[in-house]
């Protein structure tokens, strides 16, 4: 079994599940799964930033909202089906992120986190007061009238699933590359990384632009499917709050964490809101309690907790050190945890 076996099996299972999903669950189920895979993708992107490059952004909702507006605005203006203008969302968001990084990157730690949030509020307010974006009432996707709704629902689901798969595979491959290794080094020790010739700024810049463009595409897909976008829903802080919740609950800095976190997040919601039919605030109380309990008993998140107790590996990107044959080796007493770099 090579290191690629488990990830490859996971990927195959994901594809099979995605293909089978429309036949297994009804239209409502597809709507829910659509939401889940998009959130999974966004959580992975936030994790790429915070967990692998140490940039704790509280402003990714900026790009979710911008992506939604770009998609609907472009589709309406160019009179094209929304699918064809989707690539514009990550393009615009990537450019805005690149431009904003030039000044946001001057700020460190908590200053950076709060400033990204303020940046998002500024962009939201500019979209709100700018003419042509519908002001309070938002924008409706006018080109949707020509589309058959059943086909639209399914098409959106495939696009979202494909996007989520691409994000996961992309991040996995990235972290296994030399660039990924240098990103990890930046997260672990910035000064040491710089001293061995790693361009810290460039690493962070790449991750920031990629995560922002990804969130832009996620926002584009999400609001294309909603057929409707307003400033309050698009630039909602709750987008990034959900990403943070999922990643930290699941285990920051691991690829498995966001998957586990997404399952917990939607599991709690479906359990309380639909199964027990309790009001929205009780579901949120349950969710908050999950966060509190996890941080009290497994402060590094659920996946690292389980992984270390059971000694299992899943989508590990740990690099094994070349084994050096020693006497201990012959006795079989070298534990693998000393012979690998945890990432």
């Amino acid at each position, binding site marked *: 079994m090579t290191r690629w076996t488990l990830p490859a099996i996971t990927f195959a299972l994901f594809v099979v599940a995605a293909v089978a999903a429309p036949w297994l669950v009804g239209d409502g189920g597809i709507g829910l799964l659509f939401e889940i895979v998009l959130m999974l993708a966004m959580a992975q992107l936030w994790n790429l930033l915070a967990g692998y490059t140490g940039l*704790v952004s509280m402003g990714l909702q900026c790009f979710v909202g911008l992506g939604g507006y770009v998609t609907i605005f472009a589709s309406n203006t160019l009179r094209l089906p929304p699918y064809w203008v989707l690539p514009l969302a990550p393009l615009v968001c990537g450019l805005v992120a690149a431009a904003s990084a030039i000044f946001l990157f001057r700020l460190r730690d908590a200053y950076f986190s*709060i400033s990204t949030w303020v940046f998002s509020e500024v962009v939201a307010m500019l979209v709100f007061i700018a003419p042509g974006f519908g002001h309070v009432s938002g924008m409706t996707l006018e080109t949707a009238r020509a589309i058959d709704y059943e086909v639209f629902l399914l098409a959106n689901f495939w696009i979202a699933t494909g996007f989520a798969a691409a994000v996961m595979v992309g991040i996995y491959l990235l972290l296994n590359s030399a660039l990924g290794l240098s990103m990890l080094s930046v997260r672990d020790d910035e000064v040491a990384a710089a001293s061995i010739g790693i361009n810290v700024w460039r690493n962070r810049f790449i991750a920031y632009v990629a995560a922002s463009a990804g969130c832009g595409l996620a926002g584009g897909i999400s609001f294309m499917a909603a057929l409707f976008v307003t400033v309050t829903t698009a630039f909602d802080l709750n987008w990034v709050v959900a990403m943070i919740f999922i990643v930290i609950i699941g285990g920051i800095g691991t690829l498995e964490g966001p998957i586990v976190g997404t399952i917990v997040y939607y599991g709690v919601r479906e359990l309380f809101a639909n199964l027990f039919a309790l009001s929205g*605030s*009780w579901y949120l*109380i349950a969710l908050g309690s999950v966060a509190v309990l996890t*941080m009290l008993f497994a402060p590094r998140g659920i996946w690292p907790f389980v992984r270390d107790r059971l000694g299992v590996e899943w989508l590990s990107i740990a690099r094994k050190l070349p084994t050096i044959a020693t006497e201990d080796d012959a006795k079989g007493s070298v534990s693998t945890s000393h012979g690998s770099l945890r990432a």
Partner: protein
Amino acid sequence: MVWIGTVINGVLLGGLYGLFGVGLALVFGVTRIVNIMHGEFIALSAFIALGISTVLPNAHPLLLVVPVMIASFALGYVLQALFVNRSMRLPDPLAPLLLTFGLSIVTRNLMIEAFGVNPRSIHQGDFAQLSIDVCGVQIGVLPLVTLALAVVLFVTLQLVLRRTKIGRIVRATADNSEVVRLMGVRPSSVYSIVMGFSFALAGVAGLMLALRTTFTPFSGVERLLISFEVVVMGGLGSFWGAMLGGIALGVAQLVGLRINPNSGFLYANLVFFVVVLLRPNGLFGARQ
């Protein structure tokens, strides 16, 4: 004259914003925790004040400051002792952040279940409407009292930290929590006291907010960003910086609203960016 009035009212509003931020600044300065719960606590204090004012209907609204501060201190102490201290064992600052975030969601939604989402207000006679006329500029008494109270609290806090034994212990713990252990200080107890102080300050902010306007369980989270901006602008952990930051934001917001009534908090946010870009460590943040 209109502009002078706008600026003066902005400064007074800044007193309230400074109050929002100072508790956060205190906790961050000592424990390095980004306390997401702070906003919820401002809202909860407003409800505590409402509760006390129904029990004591004839008391002057400003007398509520004392019981609200005591109740808030106790709650802050207990929350830190029971929960937050336990999450501070790892060096990672994200664990306490998510913990306070979880507590904030729980608190907000329990408030929704208990008090509902309809706007409430504290019945207080005509105190909130009183205003004085200074050279043709109308100045509200309540905002004036808020700013004065903020200044008094800031000075008191500074004196406590500089001149008293507990203040020295708090500063020593902030500097090096390992070394104070050698002197017989338990950092977690200090953190609990500091969180109590922080909540007491948030309690005053919540009370002043409740006297000024109607409030709901969402009143805190809506002002969380202002609180953070105040702290970051001032330089994390700096109290006078927080005060100045609050005033800058208050003036920018009211002047901005006069330029464009639809701009909301836009101009204040832009001022925030200008300040933070010119001084990446905040107004008073050079000490790091």
